[in-house]
């Protein structure tokens, strides 16, 4: 195959994964364009830079020589226009870069819902490196930032709250829902996170919406007004009500857009040789129970792995496997495998088994089909679980009874940790009238998939 020029817009996990795999598969020329940072960094780690766990350089997964060694050209520039007729992209500095194939992986940008005052100084989201730098300016310590208000009870909101609390800055957290993230989490879990948020001295205000942000004389945010009629004085407003695809520069380019870049199962856009991957891609039809736009690290990476195959001549569908995800809510780790829907969005046949530790902030919820007892998914808080084992159980269509019986195989907590499987299974037996005896952990089953 003749050598082609592959241009990738965006150096996040999707774009970089695509580039790495294209390099493995081909000798194509690869150009990555980014305006955000010189080198790829882990977006999910930005919080740790502010908290002082790491320096920014530690968030970069590859050393700086990596790119040259692998002949991946990095261009620092902002793409303003894609000219698909003559197959080139135009940068802000008027430079033109021709391509044979173009991958758009421009990620997301924070949502803004037209609140009065949303563009004031001291109002920001937390997505980009630039926003992290801005936060360091506006909230370096509790003397400069006497209080921060965070609007939007999702994953970025709670991370921002944790960050600010690490510098002892008082935080008020406005959450639209009646309980934290209960659009996604079942009630018991959401409730536990509420408690943990309060334990960290965060002023959590549930069922509360932002009305407007008030400016001071210098055009800087000085207070927020809530729909409960409260005026909360603050020096920083964090807007974290989710993200939306970063595709404004593509309007009128001829590339079909919905909320994001419309792609088919091959991650192809309506224009030949242009692909959309990662947060900015929107599937015409949702895949399984997934959303059409998935702004998740893991799916970005998978799309990168997949599109590289297509670009290098092995046209292949994007077929993500069983859903999984993870997050950390302050001190509580969260993992999920398969589907566990919130009380609001679960289907009638989806039954839940919930167990919570009497004292520790540890709980799990397993979803199963109320008729067939088929295992559907698990949410786990404060217990680490093995991805491989749950993936296997989901593929094999195991019943929840099977999962209970072999639950010890799935435990991934460090050695010597307290084990909760006994208590979990006992509760399960009591609630469902079963008499399952949890089996001892077996290395053979775990690593060699040998049943015994």
């Amino acid at each position, binding site marked *: 195959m003749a050598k082609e020029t592959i241009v990738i817009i965006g150096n996040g996990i999707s774009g970089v994964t695509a580039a790495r795999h294209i390099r493995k598969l081909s000798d194509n020329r690869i150009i990555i364009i980014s305006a955000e940072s010189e080198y790829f960094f882990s977006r*999910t*780690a930005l919080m740790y830079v502010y908290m002082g766990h790491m320096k920014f350089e530690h968030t970069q997964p590859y050393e700086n020589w990596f790119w040259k060694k692998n002949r991946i050209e990095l261009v620092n520039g902002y793409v303003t226009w894609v000219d698909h007729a003559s197959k080139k992209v135009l940068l802000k500095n008027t430079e033109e870069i021709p391509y044979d194939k173009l991958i758009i992986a421009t990620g997301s940008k924070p949502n803004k819902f037209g609140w009065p005052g949303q563009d004031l100084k001291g109002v920001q989201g937390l997505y980009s490196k630039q926003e992290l730098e801005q936060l360091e300016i506006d909230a370096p310590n509790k003397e400069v930032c006497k209080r921060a208000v965070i609007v939007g009870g999702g994953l970025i909101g709670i991370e921002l709250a944790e960050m600010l609390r690490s510098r002892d800055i008082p935080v008020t957290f406005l959450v639209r829902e009646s309980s934290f993230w209960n659009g996604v989490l079942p009630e018991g879990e959401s409730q536990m996170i509420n408690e943990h948020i309060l334990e960290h001295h965060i002023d959590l205000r549930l069922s509360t919406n932002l009305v407007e942000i008030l400016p001071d004389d210098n055009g800087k945010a000085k207070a927020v007004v809530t729909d409960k009629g409260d005026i909360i004085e603050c020096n920083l407003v964090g807007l974290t009500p989710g993200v939306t695809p970063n595709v404004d520069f593509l309007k009128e380019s001829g590339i079909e857009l919905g909320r994001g870049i419309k792609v088919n199962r091959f991650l192809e856009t309506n224009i030949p040789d242009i692909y959309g991957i990662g947060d900015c891609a929107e599937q015409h039809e949702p895949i399984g129970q997934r959303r059409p736009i998935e702004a998740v690290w893991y799916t970005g990476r998978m799309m990168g792995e997949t599109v590289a195959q297509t670009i290098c001549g092995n046209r292949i569908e994007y077929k993500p496997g069983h859903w999984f995800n993870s997050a950390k809510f*302050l001190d509580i780790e969260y*993992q999920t495998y398969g589907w566990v829907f919130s009380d609001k969005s679960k289907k009638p046949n989806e039954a839940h088994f919930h167990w919570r530790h009497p004292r520790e902030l540890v709980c799990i919820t397993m979803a199963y089909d109320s008729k067939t007892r088929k295992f559907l998914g698990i949410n786990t808080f404060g217990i*680490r679980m093995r*991805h491989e084992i749950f993936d296997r159980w989901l593929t094999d269509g195991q019943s929840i009874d099977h999962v209970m019986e072999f639950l010890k195989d799935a435990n991934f907590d*460090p*050695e010597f*940790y307290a084990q909760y499987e006994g208590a979990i299974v006992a509760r399960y037996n009591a609630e469902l009238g079963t008499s399952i005896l949890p089996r001892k952990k077996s290395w053979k089953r775990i690593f060699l998939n040998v049943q015994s």
Partner: protein
Amino acid sequence: MKAIKNTGLVIFLIGLGIFTALTVVGTFKLTQDDFNEFVSDNGIKSDLFIKAIETTVVGKEFDGMMAFSPKVVAALENANAEHKINKEYKKVIYTNPHDMAAMIGKKAGSGFIAKNKGLMWFLTFGLGILGALFFILPNVVLLGPKGIKNNGIYLENATNRGWMAWMVFIFLVAFYLVLYFRSEYAVNWTYLVDPISESLSGNPAGHWFVYGFMYCTVMTVMAVRMYIKYRHNVYQMVRTTSVLFFQIIFAFLIPEIMVRLQMPYYDFKNAFPLDYDFFFQWNLRSLINSGGIGIFILVWGTVLTLVIVPVMVYFFGKRWYCSWVCGCGGLAETLGDPYRQHSSKTLFSWRVERWLIHGVLVFAVGMTLMTLYSFFAESGTVLGIKTSNVQNTYSLLIGSIFAGVIGTGFYPIFGNRVWCRFGCPLAAYLGFVQRFKSRFRITTNGGQCISCGNCSTYCEQGIDVRAYAQKGENIIRSSCVGCGICSAVCPRGVLKLENGPEKGRINPTQVLLGNDVDLMNLVNQK
């Protein structure tokens, strides 16, 4: 709480200040009787040296070791020079002049310090321990709910290579230089722990006893810090208890008690080649001459290295030794924990590491082969190279400078495992076993890695853990000491230290779990 911490810091610094001042203050006055006893006890035959000391030292009062030491050093060097000119080799004294100054100084100490050992112990060790505990204990409250507590590490001077870190660096380096090369300045320290030494071995303390006692003290206090910081993590608690136990019981108490029982001084857990002089002639002779217990130690030491160490590494990885038992590891995991993030993760440092640590292993093994040949062939040279020269070079460069001065002194700048990573020949040996024949691995949890970099940042051995985790690969590295911190700091539950079947332990992966099964098979099965 902050006030208690600050008070603790002040108390600690006062204790440390007095401790440091002890190197240069104090009164030394050697009586004729003491000197006569010293001469006969040590079998000194140099009339020149005896005369020189009697004229320049005996009966005079010296203010501080700075005044005392040069007299002894000069007396010894001049006497030896004269004897060598006169070919009176029987009279030459082979003791290092500074050690001689320390030995005579110990006899000569006569002022307030030597007379108030208990009080002085309290003003140095006592204040240091109290102050440190005052500084550490409030963290129970200040750190808030249990979980990973790395907030501010890169924002604080002391843990981010600021001037405080450099001060600690200078202090530690200076401390080790005194210990290894100017032991006379440690004489005052020995008085503080004389009562403890006498109650254990029956002998007054030398500077190595000071070091051993201090080592245990520092580890214990810093273990308290570990318990508080990692109180959510049982693996860390158990591991910390284990290193503390082996240090205090095996490295400190048992050898001292063995001396009291007329047995050889021996640390049963210190395995060759870390214990590089185990096969030196003088040690072999001393063991053989000690009867049953000596022979037992000889057999134990050999079996430890050849059988116990590799078998244990096969089952548990080298962590069983390096981060559960070893004294060097113990100090690194307690005193060194605040500095673990400074180990370099670059590919370049990995290259340097492999050359250096394997170089030291070759050096240690080569030296030991020479030693054994010399011992059995009763020849001082091998292929024209003097065995004792090689031994002395190793002791100086590796035993003292690398393991001590650099190994611990460089904690605040290059991380807490400089010696273990770049120098320890035992670690190199264990590493081979761990890499090629072991059940140990750090399992990567499918596709859950988010490349955040916490694991790599906090790896004390400078392993780029993330490079493996983000590919879904298990971490199998010879240098991993299994401290478990990568697993602890991982925000997504991706890493687990475990011992399992060897099959599939190394699992090169291109496409991670969670994507299309066909694609994973296509790409991963090359």
